[in-house]
């Protein structure tokens, strides 16, 4: 039996409520100071810029993946070799390098006088320490070709470092230029046991920027690294505001809180159009960073005939569709890989839109329209296919619907299935699809990663191509290209591979994807990085607002 005191209950309740407010208020105080000193003041200062990013920058560990954001990792950490325009590889932390005649030994002369942001020296020993940390979790990184063939990583002398491979693999340098995992953490960042997979102590790198302030999910402030060996950035501070919503990003930009919005798909097509028409702002599109393609799975008997695949390729107006749906943000693609990668500047015959030819090809292949029917048939089977698309991607959805309508006129029935991305990938890997929107990896991963999946099962591409008549020959040439040490021969092999893919039409190029940048007029000298994953900030200048 208890006695219920009304007044004391009221008191308890109000005190609880008050306490909650106080707790919340206190926990908030620290952040409010930070935010007002860092982000708010930056905008007015001409030596710094504020940009947005959709996600928190993550843990800034150079050797791990999600949730760390690539662009931020690339601000702090640097590679041995840097990937530049048109695939040119330039010295970064390695000043020069030599390759043995058999293509199995790479010797790097490291740049002298390089210091980490904490003042410690960059040398062969720390390079080895980083390689060891990465290779300790080899399986995690097996997607990167060089990891699979790396035999030994050795210190030759203080500024010489050597890699030995188990077999020749030409894209070693391209693989070393990617943002993760082969970039270099200073000694102070390593945990006691040297295993960085569980986290780093502090983000110490040799790059032009260092992380000065960070508030999870809110912002990150990067300051210029005073010890940077290269040309110092012209601005001294970059504040990255974490804004997950695309429309909010645009509002913050229009208000003047943001100087730069950069990335792939970071603002809606409509917002980009509006900002482009506004003279107060500058909008820019990059060179192609990847290709949006449609896979026509040749292992499906209905798609095994090249005539059917070619008919489908010719049977929709790519130019009009891409322009109409993306408002010029993407460009209609003539080949699976754009010409700005190494070895891909090959002359290929583009496949043109031609409805009549398309119908003729289907007739030739035996798929005929039955009297009074709208769907073509062969041996009693209707020409009906399923197209899988990512239901969260408005562009894919619009394209899927357009293609469905256009092929409908040919007498081909397309059923659309919208799926979650992970389910989609699962079906791709299981070879459980007819038509699938696929993207290549972009620079610096391509073209070698692309040809690798052409020949390696398990990625969906080799399966898509499995019923083309020259599949075996194609695979052999891919292996030859990846291990070749002769430039001319490699170029020849790439030529054959790209030409074959073009003629077989199992991978139908649709559009070239571009990065967008929208910025205030005070920013000058904005250049997109050649490496898809890197940041564009080092060259930026800020003029009078």
């Amino acid at each position, binding site marked *: 039996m208890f006695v219920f005191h009304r007044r004391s209950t009221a008191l308890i309740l109000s005190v609880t409520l008050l306490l909650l407010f106080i707790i919340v208020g206190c926990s*908030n105080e620290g952040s409010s100071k930070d935010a007002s000193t860092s982000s708010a003041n930056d905008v007015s200062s001409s030596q710094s810029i504020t940009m947005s990013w959709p996600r928190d920058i993550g843990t800034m560990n150079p050797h791990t993946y*999600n949730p760390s954001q690539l662009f931020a990792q690339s601000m702090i950490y640097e590679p041995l070799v840097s990937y530049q325009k048109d695939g040119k590889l330039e010295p970064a932390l390695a000043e020069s390098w030599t390759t043995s005649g058999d293509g199995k030994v790479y010797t790097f002369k490291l740049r002298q006088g390089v210091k980490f942001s904490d003042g410690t020296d960059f040398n062969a020993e720390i390079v080895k320490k980083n390689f060891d940390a990465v290779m300790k979790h080899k399986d995690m990184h097996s997607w990167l070709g060089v990891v699979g063939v790396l035999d030994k990583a050795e210190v030759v002398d203080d500024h010489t470092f050597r890699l030995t491979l188990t077999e020749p693999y030409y894209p070693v340098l391209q693989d070393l230029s990617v943002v993760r995992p082969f970039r270099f953490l200073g000694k102070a960042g390593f945990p006691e046991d040297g295993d960085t997979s569980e986290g780093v102590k502090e983000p110490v790198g040799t790059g032009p920027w260092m992380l000065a302030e960070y508030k999870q999910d809110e912002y990150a402030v990067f300051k210029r690294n005073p010890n940077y060996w290269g040309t110092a950035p012209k601005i001294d501070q970059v504040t990255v505001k974490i804004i997950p919503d695309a429309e909010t990003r645009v509002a913050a930009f229009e208000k003047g809180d943001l100087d730069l919005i950069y990335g792939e798909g970071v603002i809606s097509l409509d917002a980009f159009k509006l900002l482009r028409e506004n003279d107060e702002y500058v909008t820019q599109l990059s060179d192609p960073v990847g290709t949006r393609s449609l896979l026509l799975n040749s292992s499906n008997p209905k798609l095994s005939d090249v005539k059917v695949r070619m008919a489908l390729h010719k049977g929709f107006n790519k130019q009009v569709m891409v322009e109409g749906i993306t408002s010029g943000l993407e460009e209609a693609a003539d080949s699976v890989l754009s010409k700005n990668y190494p070895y891909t500047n090959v002359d290929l015959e583009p496949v043109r839109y031609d409805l009549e030819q398309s119908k003729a090809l289907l007739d030739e292949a035996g798929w005929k329209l039955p009297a009074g029917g709208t769907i073509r048939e062969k041996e009693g089977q209707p020409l009906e296919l399923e197209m899988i698309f990512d239901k969260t991607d408005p562009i894919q959805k619009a394209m899927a619907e357009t293609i469905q309508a256009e092929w409908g006129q040919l007498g081909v029935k397309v059923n659309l299935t919208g799926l979650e991305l992970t*389910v989609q990938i699962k079906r791709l890997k299981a070879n459980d699809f007819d038509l699938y929107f696929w993207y290549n990896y972009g620079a610096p991963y391509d073209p070698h990663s692309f040809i690798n999946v052409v020949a390696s099962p398990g990625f969906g591409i080799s399966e898509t191509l499995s019923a083309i008549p020259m599949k075996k020959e194609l695979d052999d040439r891919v292996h030859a290209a990846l291990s070749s040490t002769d430039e001319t021969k490699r170029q020849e092999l790439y030529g054959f591979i790209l030409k074959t893919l073009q003629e077989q039409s199992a991978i139908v190029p649709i559009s070239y994807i571009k990065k967008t940048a929208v910025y205030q007029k005070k920013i000058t000298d904005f250049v997109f990085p050649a490496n898809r994953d890197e940041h564009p900030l080092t060259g930026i200048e800020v003029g009078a607002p």
Partner: protein
Amino acid sequence: MISYIGKRMISIIPIVFVATLVTFALIHISPVDPAEAYLTAAHIYPTPEVLEQKRHEFGLDQPLLTQYLNTIKRMAKMDFGTSYLTNKPVWDEVKSRLPATVELALWSMLFSALVSIPLGILAAVYKNSWIDRVSRGISYFGASIPQFWLGYLLIFLFSVKLDWLPVEGRGTWENLVLPTITLSLVLIAVYTRLLRSSMLEQMQETYVQYARTRGLRERSILLKHVLKIAISPLITGMGMNLGKLLTGTIIVEQVFSWPGFGRYFVDAIFNRDIPVIQCYVFLAACLFIVCNLLVDLVQLYMDPRISTKGRAEL
């Protein structure tokens, strides 16, 4: 009293048990493999070897029952494991995001009470007057406008055009204004109508006529007697909404870049970050029960008739 609260708190256990079981089942029915989702999010191609290694790391290669029992065992010790995605203890991650969500929830609750209680009373007292019509207008608007759209409209007007308030972020009181209004409007819409009708109903009761005949002043009848009883459904509503607000206001957090719990949870769902999802379900279950208990305690205080009944039942 204490034993009553104690009993109610103990009821958390079976509810959490059921909630985690359902979540666990749902996650495993879903065709998405958490290891695969992790790799996709990390832009790593899920080769069979990597997948197997990740599954082993996450303990997904164990029998379902073992996995579930392990989870329950850990939860009992308030250990929610490590996030698949960030590799940090889930509880630390949640703890760092909770204050932002709690702050927004409490302010929204407070603001909606401060607006809807006077508005509801006035709308009832001056039935069919202009103030009643205005309150009805606000309610229609608040109940029918989608929250994200309201958020954008407020941002566009007060931040971009008038430049009075920040677009996004957290830290100062200015940051709180727009998200609080966005969250509160729908609550105000409901509470005002709820209070109005409940007041009108009570005003027909005989005790009101009796009070009038006793010569009590109208204001004192309304505020001291009618309101005290009429406010009861509103308190129930607020308790339920508080639970909802505290478990994260996903859309508003997204629109205003509010660094709260809801945003974190949505990411966890997309990435099938099971430890995070389970921690969330656990917290949500607890919060709802605690909020309900709070409601009952307030009701007990406000309406002594319930308290006697309640006591008899105990």
